[in-house]
């Protein structure tokens, strides 16, 4: 919502473009069959289209709206999402605009009780977290696909019906110029929490609703505080509640505040009530200069997911598949990981470089990641918004002790997201027992400073063998269907981080998770791993 007198997309800092539906000659080919139709051009749908294009697969991207999403919404982009954008060649504008951060501070009744640092260091190409308004996330992704010939973006195009078939899906589309049917081999449903595709298939999200409700409000102000996330527990401005404060680009500040049990959500989002609530938070943090109200919304914490993310030729990605509480900043980041995961798998399948079994690994990997988020987010939600007297008393006890007891401060530490490890995935091979340390198969590949650039700068958006031995590198590269090869210097510092020797190798999947590793790699072993990880046997 926006202040009275301003339209929904009338922002203080962002100019929303107005996109037309397909017109003229473009309408002659609207009903041509497409390998992939993506429903929803939010960040998740656009990232899926970009990933498919990088793998040489055409897609039609359908969006009911005629512009980007209203409001800053999901503002925290995690390091792993930056790695995904980097591997797709799209990270530069994000890096230029977003505000990186590593530090969080927690306050209890006005007193700082905790300062935490997220893992960072000279071997990391990116900071652990970046703040960026969602409009920019959408704009930068749109700029990456708008001139991409393999992506056909159709704005103001709503899905009104869906008929699944054995070998595809027929989508009924309506836009201001008319309606038509689009046959697609595959459909990616990226149409958000109120997914029309999910409804058309009669599917429901399962899980829990939490009691906590938050108002999220953006204000524009010149405010002198570094990019450090502040959490205020039981502050004077909202006794018994929790307030979160984030800095965003363009002098925009996000203020999230919890509503009390007796507060009516309808009333709480009235403009005068939002203004008074924001003013009291700003008074508490000592901001006495002018500020302007930009946008606000109301949010309640849920952990909801589909039991199965794939239904025949329809695959759910992002919020259409799962709703997570905001505290773990995993809504957007998990959605991007979903899009990237199914993107490379479909990309390989549809270019005859993988068997259909690879697609079956999507639900276990990404639903597993969602359940992991639920476990962590439920802990965070219980701390930020204690659901019962018992949780309230123990939360307050931990906050009270945190000032003097370090271990109690750890209880107050938000569980910041780390990439999920696909430990039991069918698309990951068992670890080589010769390894005693280093990142294991299923985990995200670690980054390394290579003097001048980073390992992540050298990883293409496809399978990559990271090794040291020149003969192995040559032998692997000469094989049909070989992964890309990145050869590193035989450097003790690198060996210490990867637990490798000169003959060792890691096989990194296109989503930067480790598919396999060997203490003593052979070209034949790598070829067998590529065969298994792309489920080639099923095509024979």
């Amino acid at each position, binding site marked *: 919502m926006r202040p009275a007198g301003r339209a929904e997309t009338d922002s203080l800092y962002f100019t929303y473009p107005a996109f037309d539906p397909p017109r003229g000659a473009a309408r002659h080919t609207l009903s041509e069959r497409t390998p992939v139709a993506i429903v929803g051009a939010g960040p998740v749908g656009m990232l899926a289209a970009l990933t498919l294009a990088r793998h040489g697969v055409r897609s039609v991207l359908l969006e009911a709206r005629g512009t980007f999403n209203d409001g800053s919404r999901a503002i925290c982009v995690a390091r792993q999402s930056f790695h995904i954008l980097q591997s797709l060649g799209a990270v530069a504008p994000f890096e230029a605009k977003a505000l990186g951060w590593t530090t969080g501070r927690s306050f209890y009744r006005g007193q700082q009780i905790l300062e935490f640092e997220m893992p960072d260091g000279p071997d990391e190409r990116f900071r652990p977290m970046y703040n960026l308004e969602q409009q920019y996330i959408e704009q930068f992704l749109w700029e990456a696909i708008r001139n991409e010939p393999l992506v056909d973006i159709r704005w103001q195009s709503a899905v009104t019906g869906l008929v699944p078939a054995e070998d595809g899906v027929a989508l009924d589309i309506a836009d201001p110029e008319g309606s038509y049917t689009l046959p697609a081999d595959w459909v990616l449903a990226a149409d958000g929490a109120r997914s029309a595709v999910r409804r058309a298939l009669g599917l429901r999200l399962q899980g829990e609703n939490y009691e906590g409700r938050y108002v999220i409000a953006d204000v524009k102000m010149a405010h002198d505080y570094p990019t450090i996330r502040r959490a205020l527990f039981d502050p004077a401005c909202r006794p018994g509640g929790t307030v979160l404060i984030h800095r965003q680009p363009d002098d925009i500040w996000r203020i999230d505040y919890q509503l009390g049990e007796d507060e009516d959500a309808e009333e709480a989002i009235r403009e005068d009530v939002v203004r008074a609530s924001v003013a009291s938070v700003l008074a508490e943090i000592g901001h006495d200069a002018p500020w302007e109200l930009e946008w606000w919304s109301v949010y309640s914490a849920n952990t909801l997911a589909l039991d199965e993310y794939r239904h025949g030729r329809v695959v759910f990605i992002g919020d259409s598949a799962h709703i997570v509480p905001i505290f773990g900043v995993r809504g957007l980041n998990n959605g991007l990981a979903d899009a990237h995961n199914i993107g490379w798998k479909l990309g390989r399948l549809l270019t005859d470089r993988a068997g259909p079994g690879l697609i079956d690994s999507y639900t276990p990997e990404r639903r597993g990641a969602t359940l992991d988020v639920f476990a962590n987010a439920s802990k965070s939600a219980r701390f930020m918004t204690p659901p019962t007297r018992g949780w309230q*008393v*123990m939360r*307050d*006890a*931990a906050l*009270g*002790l945190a000032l003097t*007891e370090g*271990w*109690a401060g750890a209880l107050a530490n938000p569980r910041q997201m780390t990439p999920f490890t696909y430990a039991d995935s069918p698309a990951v091979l068992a670890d080589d027992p010769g390894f005693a340390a280093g990142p294991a198969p299923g985990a995200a590949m670690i980054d390394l400073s290579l003097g001048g650039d980073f390992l992540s700068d050298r990883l293409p958006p496809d399978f990559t063998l990271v090794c040291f031995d020149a003969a192995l590198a040559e032998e692997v590269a000469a094989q049909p269907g070989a992964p890309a090869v990145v050869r590193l210097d035989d450097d003790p510092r690198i060996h210490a981080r990867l637990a490798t020797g000169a003959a060792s190798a890691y096989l990194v999947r296109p989503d930067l998770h480790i598919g396999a590793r060997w203490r003593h790699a052979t070209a034949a072993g790598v070829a067998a791993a590529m065969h298994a990880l792309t489920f080639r046997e099923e095509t024979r």
Partner: protein
Amino acid sequence: MTPDQTESVYEALARAIDRAAPEPPEQVLARLCLLLARALDDPAQVDKAIEAALRAPPGPDGGR
């Protein structure tokens, strides 16, 4: 602990709850439980103590 020591602890707890007033007793007792649990360094013992505390019949105030 000897019976005398147990009695001293009992008295110290009573005085601590009164000194904490008007803070509700449960607040100070919850902090104390976390501190004692850390000092005990034995999660199984803590679980047994929690179960024993829940098994004991509630005091005269318990039904309110």
